[in-house]
């Protein structure tokens, strides 16, 4: 018992330090964090009987035991990270953070600023855009199992980005946010908040990366708000080292006639838990959710998704593909929920798992809850190895077995990668995949 009290004390101490460091922050923000911390302490850790954690490893979720939340950073070489944070050809603005601290910032062009575009860090937003944050910060429900970790995020979050696009503004070049974890046993809390007003259009690229091979914790939240007719295209690349424990809680709200696209490329982490909730709230809205993950020895990638249709005439499409090498494990748990009255819904969900080793384990929980009758909904889940015929076809053309396997895996991922709008980014992710595949 004593040890437990000790840990309890240590996170309280870290939190107090964290609050003390926010001396210039407004009162409401401090209060907000205090409340979040209290909720975090009150909420239980996920239990075995918790359906949202079925099949998941829960042995490393007691994060207080393993990570420091005091925000101290051992980061030495900032320019190295700055240089490594170049995933796209062009950009409308970029932020690089390491251990929650600002490394570098490229502000949005004056022309966009004049139109009212806001592109700033969360710490800056607290000082200057408090009203926006009060309306939108953490205002989407967390309901896929990581409620406790969302509160942890709110309690300790210091940075991340706020992107606000006013009515009718359309921007081609993407905004980019890079979050690095650097300090051994440190914790980062990347936050991404995108608000796209009526008929605006915007693209955002986010990358989560490790500086070095030390274990760390990342607990991130991304919330997208798409107003009437707005378009948001969001691509997330997660390439932490394989010591990291990662939580990523994503949610989007798609208003009337809006289009939201979310692409995830998942390569890193020892244990990664991502939750994605697509809330299709306005009629005529369309949401795309895509993901690809490549796992190898010791990794567990646990993904939970929810597609909620609460208005008529909406569509959503989900495609999650996993390729598993060595002794690794994936969990895909997805649910399509069509509310009563959400007629003429088209909702699809596809999960494909490619087993590249007999020690790999793929779990699939594709679900449907339909309460409207005039709908087209389906889900499909398959798990298999590469078919002998496919390998044979390539062997017959003189391609060695290993190369053939590699090609097939790349081809398997292409269905997701080809949807990434930025060609440089797509190429960059292909390089990361190749590097990982060849180990």
């Amino acid at each position, binding site marked *: 018992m004593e040890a437990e009290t000790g840990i309890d004390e240590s996170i309280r101490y870290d939190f107090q330090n964290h609050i003390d460091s926010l001396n210039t922050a407004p009162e409401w923000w401090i209060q907000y964090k205090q409340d979040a911390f209290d909720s975090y302490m009150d909420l239980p850790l996920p239990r075995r009987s918790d359906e949202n954690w079925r099949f998941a490893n829960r042995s490393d979720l007691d994060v207080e035991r393993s990570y420091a939340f005091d925000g101290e950073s051992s980061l030495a070489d900032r320019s190295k990270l700055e240089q490594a944070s170049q995933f796209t050809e062009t950009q409308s603005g970029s932020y690089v953070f390491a251990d929650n601290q600002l490394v570098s910032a490229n502000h949005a062009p004056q022309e966009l600023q004049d139109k009212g575009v806001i592109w700033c860090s969360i710490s800056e937003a607290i000082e200057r855009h408090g009203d926006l944050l009060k309306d939108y910060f953490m205002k989407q429900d967390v309901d896929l199992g990581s409620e406790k970790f969302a509160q942890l995020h709110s309690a300790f979050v210091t940075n991340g980005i706020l992107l606000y696009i006013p009515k009718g503004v359309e921007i081609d070049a993407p905004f980019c946010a890079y979050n690095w974890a650097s300090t051994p046993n440190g914790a980062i809390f990347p936050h991404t908040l995108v608000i796209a007003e009526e008929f605006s259009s915007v693209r955002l690229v986010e990358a989560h990366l490790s500086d070095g091979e030390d274990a760390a914790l990342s607990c991130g939240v991304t919330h997208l708000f798409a107003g009437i007719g707005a378009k948001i295209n969001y691509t997330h690349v997660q390439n932490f080292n394989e010591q990291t424990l990662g939580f990523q809680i994503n949610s989007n709200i798609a208003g009337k006639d809006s289009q939201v696209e979310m692409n995830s490329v998942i390569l890193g982490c020892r244990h990664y838990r991502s939750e994605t909730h697509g809330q299709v709230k306005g009629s005529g809205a369309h949401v795309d959710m895509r993901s690809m993950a490549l796992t190898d020895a010791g990794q567990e990638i646990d993904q939970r998704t929810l597609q909620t249709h609460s208005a008529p005439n909406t569509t959503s499409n989900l495609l999650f593909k996993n390729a598993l090498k060595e002794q690794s494990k994936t969990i895909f748990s997805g649910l399509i929920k069509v509310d009563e009255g959400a007629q003429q819904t088209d909702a699809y969900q596809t999960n494909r798992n490619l087993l590249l080793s007999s020690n790999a384990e793929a779990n699939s929980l594709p679900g449907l809850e339909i309460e409207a009758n005039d*709908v087209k909904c389906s889900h499909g889940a398959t798990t298999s190895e590469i078919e002998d015929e496919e390998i044979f076809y390539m062997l017959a053309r003189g391609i060695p077995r290993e190369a053939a396997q590699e090609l097939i895996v790349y081809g398997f991922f292409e269905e997701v990668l080809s949807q990434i709008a930025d060609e440089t980014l797509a190429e960059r992710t292909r390089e990361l995949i190749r590097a990982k595949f060849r180990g």
Partner: protein
Amino acid sequence: MTTAASQIDIDRDKGDFKYEESHKYDAGYGLTEKTIDYICDVKGEDDWIRDFRKRALKVFESKAMPTHWATKDLDNIVFDNIRYYLAGDKQAKKSWDDVPDEVKETFERLGIPENERKFLAGVEAQFDSEAAYSNIKEAVAKDGVIFMGSTEGLMKHPELFKKWFGKVIPTGDNKFSALNSAVFSGGSFIYVPPGVKVSHPLQAYFRINAENFGQFERTLIIADEGSEVTYMEGCTAPKFDTATLHSAVVELVAMPGAKIEYITVQNWSSNVFNLVTKRAVAHENSVVKWIDCNIGSRLTMKYPGVVLKGRKARGEVMSIALANDGQHQDTGAKMIHAADETTSNVISKSISVGKGRSTYRGQVHMPKHLKGCKNNTECDALLINSDSRTDTYPAITVRGDQNYVQHEASVSKVSAEQIFYMQQRGLSEAEAMSLSVNGFVNDLTRQFPMEYSVELKRLIELEMEGSVG
């Protein structure tokens, strides 16, 4: 749009009757150790069964309701308001003349023709808890097939019974299997000797006749090497106001090369909680096929499973569920692959009418070090009215070598064009709807034995009446 009032009430004319109750044995309401002593004393059971039951009671009491994943409706079961044992007479009847008139009347109301009654190979009709009539057709008995009530089986063939009893479904499998293990009575016991192919399907009719009376049958079927057997159960139940609990446990054992087909048509009245555990063990090269059809009950929770234990064993579940107003059909399948080259196939079709809710829950498990296993799962749901509901919750775990799993589910409604087409040709909207729904399940019903598919078709027609317009 259809209103709740215009929905035709589920037609249960056939089952809507009850008899004067005259139970010689009645364990009273509620469940305690005393209830179990009473059951054991009445049935004259051995001490090992008494101990088995008492241990099961403890497990039942210690287990929580599975409401963290299952419907909260389960909380409406009041275990203290249920009578756990009722019996008219403890001896199962041997010949037709010995069958009580009341039971004969039941057959009459069920509309079984006189000649069919004699034709049916070894009809096993359960009247309340005990098998009231059990007649093994001579031809079957000559081959050495044992077909009797499970109570009788327990007395006469303890060596066979004990070997498999509670082995496929252990007491602690779930709360309701524990309940059954504590208070089981009735059900069938079948043993088919090696190489015997039973030519006629063995049938049993189950009825519930007393208010608040729960049925806890225990069925055990063992098909020895290379044998084949088909078993059918169909149920209709009288209507009552208070909820009734039905919690059966069915264990099947298919020895190498054996084939078991188990067919259920479930049409309990709409106040019945039907919480059933059904599982089979399939040894090398054997085939187990569950055909499951759920039309009645208030809440059915039933996930027939096959543990594929021997190489090249095959498991199949074909299920049809129809959920009308006030009904929740929570059904599915479990396929546990435990040997190389095992295959399984699950096809589930559900229809939700009015405010009905149908749910598919499935589990497919392929552990490490298995080679060449295959599973195919298809779930199709049809939604008839705008407030109908359907859910699908499969869980699939795959490891190992050259294993292949595919799962597909779709949800749709009856196409307006189809209905329009048929109306153009003179069918009423309701007839068109019924035809369309029958078409939806047709590829499954074709696999049913003829009399069942005919009965099923009629039931669907009745259920669909008034669902449109």
